[in-house]
């Protein structure tokens, strides 16, 4: 039940985040959204993910956005679209939502232990993690050992992002060493 309450609250904060005219408010709503997402994940037993979200989503991501906002105009000043253009995005969203709602009919029920996702490789990880890798935390052993190659790719993506940001924003000045 608490899960449902948190999820509904998330929807409300998400709408508030995209409706606020002051971009600083918008970013703060996004941070609050991430913090509540971390609570949802603790509730869904994904403790590692909740930890990451609380550190990254609610912390660092908001700081990056506010740091960018200090360099530019804080208020959103777009004119409203007129005529049919105003309703076009809403129509696209409605059609996509209808298709996705229809797709959930085929999903296995929430919390069903017989769902196909729990039948493939996950039982192997759960059973063998402790004696094969000596790690009690199954998430860490899958992350670092069974799927180490994936994690190498993810680390490369993070590294590439840093290179891109340096290339886009760093300037070679005379007084900089």
């Amino acid at each position, binding site marked *: 039940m608490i899960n449902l309450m948190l999820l509904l609250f998330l929807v409300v904060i998400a709408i508030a985040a995209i409706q606020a005219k002051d971009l600083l408010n918008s*970013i703060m709503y996004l941070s609050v959204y991430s913090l509540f997402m971390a609570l949802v994940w603790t509730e869904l037993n994904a403790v590692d993910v909740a930890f990451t979200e609380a550190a990254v989503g609610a912390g660092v991501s908001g700081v990056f956005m506010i740091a960018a906002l200090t360099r530019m105009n804080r208020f959103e000043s777009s004119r409203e679209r007129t005529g049919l253009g105003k309703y076009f995005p809403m129509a696209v969203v409605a059609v996509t939502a209808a298709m996705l709602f229809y797709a959930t009919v085929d999903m296995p029920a929430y919390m069903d232990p017989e769902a196909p996702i729990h039948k493939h490789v996950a039982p192997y990880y759960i059973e063998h993690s402790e004696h094969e890798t000596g790690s009690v935390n199954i998430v860490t052993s899958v992350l670092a050992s069974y799927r180490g190659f994936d994690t190498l790719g993810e680390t490369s993506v993070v590294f590439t992002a840093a290179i891109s940001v340096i290339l886009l924003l760093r300037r070679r000045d005379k007084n900089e060493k």
Partner: protein
Amino acid sequence: MIDFIAAKYNYLICVCLMMIGFYAVIAKQNLMKKIIGLSIFQTSVFLFYISMAKVTDGTAPIVWEGAVRYDNPLPHVLILTAIVVSVSTTAVAIALMINIYKAYGTIEDSKIREIEAGESGGSVSR
């Protein structure tokens, strides 16, 4: 209908969040709003994955004696790394936005389009 909603409310709320993010990306003119919309969109996908990992009577996937059943650790791993990747990609988007602001002096999509149209007409030169 009620049974359907009760059995799958997590997925339905995922779709709602995803559509909120999608709407922000396609309808809002402000680039920062678009980035915020993208973040919400990403988070809804994460929520979808983690919802699939949950099982009845499941506990967090850390080995202990009293556990009946563990939640599926695989989606947790994928999303754990995806969150860090998502903040990195958001940072690249912000860097691009800062460069756009440097070039045009605004982050409003409609105004950038006006400036572009003025430039191609040959009336304004930089």
